[in-house]
C-alpha cells in the first residue's frame, strides 16, 4: 500500500532542514586571513618651507602632522627666495616627495598664500613652475619684507582650483589639500 499522500511533505521538510544545517556548517569552516596592512598613500604629513636669504643662507621650516607649527623669523626690509616642499613621511624609512606629483600635475594644482598682519608680500619667483597656461603655481616665491611686525602666513595647497586668478581663497575654489598657518616675525 502507498502511504497517505499528505504525510510526504514533512519528510521533505526534514530533509531540507538538515540540508540547511549542513550548508551552515560548511560556511562555518571558512576562516579569514589576517588583513593586509594598508600602505597609506598621498598623505601629506610634512611640509617644508625652504627660505633662502639674499646672502644665500638657507633655513628650513618643517611642519610634521601632529606637531607644533614652527615660527618663521625674517629680517625687516629684506628679500627671500622661498620654495615649498610636500612629503608623505608616514614611513620613516621611505619618505615620499609629493612635490614632484604637484609639478607633474601643475594644471590641477595651485599654491596660495594669505598674510595676516605681518609686513610681508609674496609674489611668484621667476623660476617658478608654470602650468600649461603659463600661470605660476607659486611653488617658488619671492618674499619681500617691510617694517618690523608679526603675524602669520597661511599656505594652501589647492587641488583642482576653479580660477587661479582669484584674489581670495574662496574665489580660487577647488579643494584644499594642505592648509597651514605659519607664525611669522619680521624683525
Amino acid at each position, binding site marked *: 500500500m502507498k502511504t497517505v499522500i*499528505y504525510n510526504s*511533505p514533512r519528510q521533505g521538510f526534514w530533509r531540507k532542514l538538515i540540508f540547511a544545517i549542513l550548508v551552515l556548517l560548511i560556511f562555518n569552516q571558512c576562516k579569514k586571513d589576517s*588583513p593586509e*596592512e594598508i600602505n597609506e598613500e598621498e598623505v601629506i604629513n610634512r611640509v617644508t618651507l625652504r627660505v633662502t636669504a639674499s646672502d644665500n643662507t638657507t633655513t628650513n621650516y618643517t611642519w610634521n*602632522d*601632529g606637531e607644533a607649527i614652527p615660527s618663521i623669523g625674517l629680517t625687516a626690509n629684506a628679500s627671500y627666495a622661498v620654495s615649498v616642499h610636500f612629503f608623505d613621511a608616514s614611513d620613516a624609512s621611505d619618505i615620499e616627495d609629493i612635490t614632484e606629483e604637484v609639478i607633474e600635475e601643475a594644471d590641477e594644482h595651485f599654491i596660495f598664500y594669505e598674510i595676516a598682519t605681518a609686513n610681508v608680500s609674496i609674489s611668484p619667483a621667476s623660476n617658478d613652475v608654470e602650468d600649461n597656461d603659463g600661470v605660476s603655481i607659486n611653488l617658488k616665491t619671492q618674499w619681500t619684507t617691510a617694517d618690523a611686525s608679526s*603675524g602669520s602666513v597661511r599656505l594652501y595647497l589647492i587641488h583642482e582650483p576653479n580660477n587661479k586668478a582669484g584674489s581670495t581663497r574662496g574665489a580660487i575654489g*577647488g579643494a584644499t589639500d594642505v*592648509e597651514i598657518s605659519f607664525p611669522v616675525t619680521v624683525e
Partner: protein
Amino acid sequence: MWRFFQVNRHFLILLLIRQLTFFCLLCLAYHATAQDCNESIFGVVYDLHDNIPLQGVTITLLENDRKVQTTANGTFIFPALCQQGYTLLLEHPDCSPITTKNTQPSSFLKKFYLEHHLNELEEIIITDQGQKKTTKTGIESSLSKEELKRFHSQNLGDALAQLAGVSSIKTGNAIVKPMVHGVTGSRIAIINDGIRLQDHEWGADHAPSIDINGADQVQLIKGATALQFGGDALGGIIQLIPQKYPLSDSLLGSISSGYVHQGKGGYLLTDITKTFTNGTYFGGNTSLKNTGDLKNPNHILSNTGNREQHAKVYFGRNTITQEWRFNYSFFQKEAGILAAAHIGTVGDLARSIESTQPLFEKPWTRSINNPKQSTVHHGLSVRYDRRMTNQAKWDIQYSFQANNRKEFDVRRGEANNRAALDIELLSHDMLFNFRSKQENSLRWQSGLSAQLQDNFVDPNTGVRRLIPDYLRYKFGIYTISEYAPSNNFSAEVGLRFDYDYIDAQKYYRIADWNAREYNDDFAHTIISTGNASNYLTRQIKKFGNFSASAGIKQWLGKQTNAYLNLGFITRSPNPSELFSDGLHHALATIEQGDLRLSQERAIKGVFSLAKKNDRFTYTLSGYYSRVKDYILLQPSEQGFDQARNSAFLMREYTQLDQVNLLGIDADLSISFGKHLAYQATAAWVSAQSTTGEPLIDTPPLNISQEIFFQMFKKRPLSLRLSSQYQARQTQFPDYNFSYTFIENGVLTERIIDISSPPKAFHLMHLSLETRIKNNIEVRLVTENIFDVDYRNYLNRLRYFAGETGRNIRLEFSYIF
C-alpha cells in the same frame, strides 16, 4: 478480502473525520452488499487560489447521472462504484466547471482544485495583493504597482516618501535612504523578496541597492511589530513584494521609455512574464537609467550624473499547494557626488557655508568624474513554499547577496583611477518559517534564521579602511501568535531572540588606540604591531538580542478600527558603529567607531485609529519610543582632530543614556466619486535626549496634499496636482565650530553655522496621464513647477548647493 477490509477501514476513518451522515454509511453498506461493485471515489475539493476547502460544489457522475454536493469540509463521496473509469463534472457557482476523465475509483483521497472564473481570480489576486497584511495588528501602508509607476525614474527612497511617516535622508540626489519614524540605517529593515538587504548599513551615504521597478508592491510596516523580519527595526519594515501570477496561459509585460529634462536623461524599462495554466512562470525585468548633471534654478550641480542598470530573472512554479521560485537580480549604479562637496579641510567647509553659490561649477556634462560612488549588487535566492492540508504552511529560503561598493575620490596621478574605498560584503541567509492555524481564531507562526557575512576591504586603495575585514554570524528564532476570536478583535504577541557574533581584524593607529585608552580594556586583542605605527587587533563581539512585541486591534464601529502596538527592541551595534575609522571627504569629517558600544534597548508604543469606507479613509497614528544607550555619530569633545592640525571635523560614535522619540503621522483621503479625489499626509516627529538636546537629522514637519481629477469619458485624462510642504526644523543640536579667516590681512574668527536648518519650502507638482489605443500609457510629469530654489535639511550636501529645480518628464509605456 484483505483489500475489501482496507477499503472499508479507510471509509470509516474518513467518514468520521469528514462528518458524513450515518445515512451514507448505510447506503454504502447496502450497495456494497447488493452489487458486485464495491469501489468508490472520494475526495475533497479546494479553491485553487487559497487552498480553502470548497463547500457546495456539485459533482456529477456523468456515467449514471448521480449527483452529490461537497460538505463544509469540501469532501464528497461516490460509493458503490465498479472498477472502471468515470467522468466527473465539478460545478460551483463562482468557479469554472471542470471535467475529469477516466477517474478510477480507489481507496485514496483525491484532491480536486476549482479555479475561480478568470476575471474573478484576477480580482482576488489584485485585492489580495492590495490588502494582504503581514501583521494582524500592525499599521501598514503600501504603494501599489500603479502608484510605483509614477516613480519610474526615481529611487526607492523617493517613492516611499509618499507614505506618511517616511522621509528620505539624502546625500545629493542619487543617494537616497528611507527614514521611518525619524530613524534610518540599521534601525529600519528593507526586505526584498523575503530577504533583508544588507548593504545600506555602512553609513549615512550608503543607499540601498534596489530598483523599485522590480517590485510589484512596496509595503511599509510601522513600528516594531513584524518580528519575523528582525528584532532590531525600531522605525519599521519596508517590504518589496514580488507579483503573484494567475494560473493561466498568458504573457504579461510592458516596455516604458521616458525622457527626463533634468540631467537630459532617459530611461528604458522592460518587464515580461510568461505564465502557464499549470502554474509555471518565468520572466524578467530590466531597467536602464542615464542622466547627466542636474540643475538648480541658479546654478549647475556639477558632477551629479547617474547611471543605473538593473536586471532580474525569475522562474518558478506555483501549484497553489506548493510553490518554488528562483530569483536572480543584478543592480549596478554609478553616481557622481556633487563636485562642490569635495572639500579638503574645515576651511573649505567654512567657505562653502558662507557662499551662496557652489564653490565649484563647470559647464553641463553627462560624464561622471571623481568623486563618485559605484555599487554592484548581486542577489540570488531560492524559495520553496508548501501549504499543507491542515491549513499549515511552511517555507524555506536560501539567499546569497554580494554587495560591492567603490568610492572614488579626487586624487593625484595614478591613484585617481583607483577606488579610495572598496568593500565587498558577502551574505548568506537561510530562513525557515512555519505558519499554522489551530482553530479559526488562533494562528501561530515561528521561524529560524541564520546568516553568515564576510566583509572584505581591498587593501590596494592606499587609504585606511573605513570598515575592517570581518566575519559576522547571526542566528535568530522567533514565534508570533495571533488570536482573533471575532472580526471585531484581534491580538498578537511575538518573541524573538537573535545571537550576533562579529569577528573583526582591524589595524588601529597606535596614537588613536592610546588616545581612546583601549589598552585598559582591550590590550589582549592586540595580535601584532604593523609598521611601527599600527596595531593589528582581533575584535570579537558577541551579543544576544531579545525582542518582543504585542498588539491589539479593536473594532469601534463606523468602519473604524483602533490599533495599539507595544514593542521591546534590542539592537546590537553594527560594524560601522563599532569600527568606523576614516575620512568622509564630503563633510571634511573623520568618523570613528567605538569598541565600547553596547546594545541599544528600546520600547516603542504606537496607537492608531483607522477608518475606511468608499468615500472617506483616514489613518492617524501617534508613537512614543524610549531608547536606552542610543548610538549616534556626535562631534568629539574637541570638535576637531587635533592631531591633524584642525583640518577635519571629528565625529565619534557615542551612546546617549536615553533618547525619546515622539511623533504623529496622519493620512487622509476623500473620494468624490470616480473622477475626483483628495489626499493628504502629514508627519511630525520630535527626537530628544533626556538632557533636552535634540537629535541631528530629525525630519521636520511635512505635509503633502494631492488632488486627483479625471476628465473625458471616452479617453480618460487623469490630472494630479500635488503640493509638498516641509517646515523648517526648529529642533536641532548645535554642532557649530569656529574658524579663523584671513581677510584683508587681518585674522577674523567666525562661528561656522553647520547646524541651523534651511528655510521651509513649498513645492508643487503636476502629473497628466492618459491612454492611447488602450495599451499605450502616456505620462507627463512636472516636478517643482515654479522652479523653487530651496535647500533640504535632510540632504547632507545642503551646505554646498541648492536642490534641483523644475523637472519635466515624459514617458510612454506599452503594456501587453
